[in-house]
């Protein structure tokens, strides 16, 4: 497949408006301005595009949840938080083709009749926020954004909003809170953002890569897009491959190729002298897959059937040198650090799982530890928390413990006891005088 989303990678000066226009840039935008918003929405629905941010929700369907008769403002938010470990594709798109992202934002905003769009970009990406800001300013100067765009009656402002370091702000309702100038605490749903989102108004949050597909869908048609990939899993996808492969990086392939193709044909396979042990198919929050699952197709439905998820398309590859207990402890620490702290099962659970895993790693595992981790994961997922971060740590941890249990068990069998007499940490954790102990 020729590159579609990454076609500008390697083109000199690919960030500039001149280069973008020379390659047919903003043609889709001009075409869209002649269409009705409903027709745009219809085209995207027909393309069967599914969100690239993690959940794989059909984009056209999501847009259709915006109340038709809502009189007030609506908002489009481009999610450029890119905080899921193992994910680094949105940065690539912004770096090589910022105007493609801007054009995609404009098309989505038009389809849902929004006059303001915000790009929420993670704070660490200051340089890429500047690149996007310049692209927006240049497009505005040429009349592609702003008031009365290209002689139409449509107005659109795009504002780049920088986060400041918090994984949870990738979650759409935490992101909305963050734009509103608050701490990134996810909201209870319903109401869903499409009904009451940013500033209480109907809001659509879409990932950068989702939006970057839109100009191509408009230019080449929904049928063309739907012909790439597999039924219900259409279009090109950016796979971010990291870990122990020869050539890590972002590769663009149709949805539905196998993980074997991604890892071995496109990323050079595993480092010399090592073999594949396991991989996360879609960012660190996806249940782990073992080497025998390498022929599973990389699309939303096939990954779900295989008991995992395609998530963001971040493929983290682990070879036989990896200590799974250490990897699990590393991820548990990540989620314990990033939990916003609103719900007990997530705040305490992630911390507790981290403590247990670090203790096993230190050689003091105990019988019953693995059951305890699985119990923690059960109580933090399946709707027991406000947002899916509870699931996001439960899925990788429980899958690692279940699928690679041997490694954990060997550690625990060889463990020594923790020194029995630990000094009580809290003054009241020892026996209390006068309470019959």
């Amino acid at each position: 497949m020729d590159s579609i989303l990454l076609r500008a990678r390697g083109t000199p000066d690919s960030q500039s408006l001149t280069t973008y226009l020379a390659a047919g840039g903003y043609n889709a935008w001009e075409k869209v301005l002649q269409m009705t918003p409903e027709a745009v929405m219809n085209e995207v629905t027909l393309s069967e595009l599914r969100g690239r941010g993690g959940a794989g929700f059909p984009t056209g369907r999501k847009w259709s949840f915006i109340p038709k008769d809502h009189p007030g403002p609506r908002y489009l938010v481009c999610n450029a938080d890119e905080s899921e470990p193992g994910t680094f594709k949105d940065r690539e798109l912004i770096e090589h083709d910022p105007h493609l992202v801007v054009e995609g934002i404009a098309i989505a905003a038009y389809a849902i009749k929004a006059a303001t769009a915000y790009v929420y970009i993670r704070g660490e990406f200051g340089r890429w926020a500047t690149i996007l800001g310049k692209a927006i300013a240049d497009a505005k100067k040429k009349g592609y954004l702003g008031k009365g765009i290209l002689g139409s009656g449509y107005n659109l402002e795009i504002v780049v909003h920088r986060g400041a370091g918090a994984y949870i702000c990738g979650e759409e309702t935490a992101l909305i809170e963050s734009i509103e100038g608050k701490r990134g605490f996810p909201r209870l749903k319903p109401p869903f953002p499409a009904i009451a989102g940013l500033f209480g108004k109907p809001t659509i949050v879409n990932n950068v890569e989702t939006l970057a597909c839109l100009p191509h869908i408009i230019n080449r048609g929904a049928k063309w897009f739907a012909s790439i990939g597999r039924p219900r899993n259409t279009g090109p996808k950016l796979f971010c491959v990291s870990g122990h492969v020869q050539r890590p990086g972002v590769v663009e392939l149709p949805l539905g190729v196998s993980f074997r193709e991604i890892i071995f044909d496109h990323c050079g396979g595993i480092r010399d002298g090592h073999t594949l042990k396991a991989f996360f198919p879609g960012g660190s929050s996806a249940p782990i897959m073992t080497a025998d699952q390498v022929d599973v197709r990389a699309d939303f439905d096939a990954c779900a059937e295989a008991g995992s998820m395609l998530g963001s398309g971040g493929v983290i590859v682990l070879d036989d040198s990896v200590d799974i207990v250490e990897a699990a402890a590393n991820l548990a620490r990540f989620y314990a650090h990033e939990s916003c702290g609103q719900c007990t099962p997530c705040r305490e659970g992630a911390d507790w799982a981290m403590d247990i895993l670090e203790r096993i790693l230190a050689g003091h595992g105990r019988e019953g530890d693995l059951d305890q981790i699985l119990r923690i994961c059960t109580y933090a997922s399946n709707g027991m928390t406000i947002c899916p971060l509870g699931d996001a740590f439960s899925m990788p941890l429980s899958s690692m413990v279940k699928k690679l249990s041997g490694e954990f068990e060997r550690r625990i069998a060889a463990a020594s006891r923790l020194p029995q007499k630990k000094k009580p940490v809290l003054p009241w954790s020892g026996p209390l005088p006068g309470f019959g102990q």
Partner: protein
Amino acid sequence: MTTRPIVSEPAENLCEVTFDSKLEKRIADTLKQYPTPRAALLPVLWLCQDRYGWISPGVMRAVAQRLGENPAHVEGVVTFYTMFRTRPPASYVLQVCRTLSCAMCGGKELAEHLTTKLGVGFGERTPDGLFELHAVECLGACGSAPVVQINDDYYESMTPEKIDAVLETLTRKA
């Protein structure tokens, strides 16, 4: 949870902060981009951090005043996000990624190398005030692990030798 205590500050930071006219103008422009003043909080805090290098209690109060906010809300926001600094930073703030892909691909060795090389632990700074070392979570560049962010710049596919060269250049520049 990413909350950190605000360390005790010298008295002058607790006094009133006066923004220069350029900063006042940029704050006013930022406010125009949002339907509520509160929504301008993160961008305004960024403007202040870019200007002063960190966000002192005085700056928090001044920002609260510009936005018509309660200072407690501003402090709550500043301490929630890991990138807002509540004390003056060293000239170069080194943030080493410690999440899985980096940790597996040389990040651990790199982190150890940096602690020995600089002679400081994580969260500490060198006595000359030049470098400050932090371990952070995934920086969104895992394909070129291990990654170190120094101030606003990404340094990717690092090795102990490469980072030594970077530190040398930075020391010369300082």
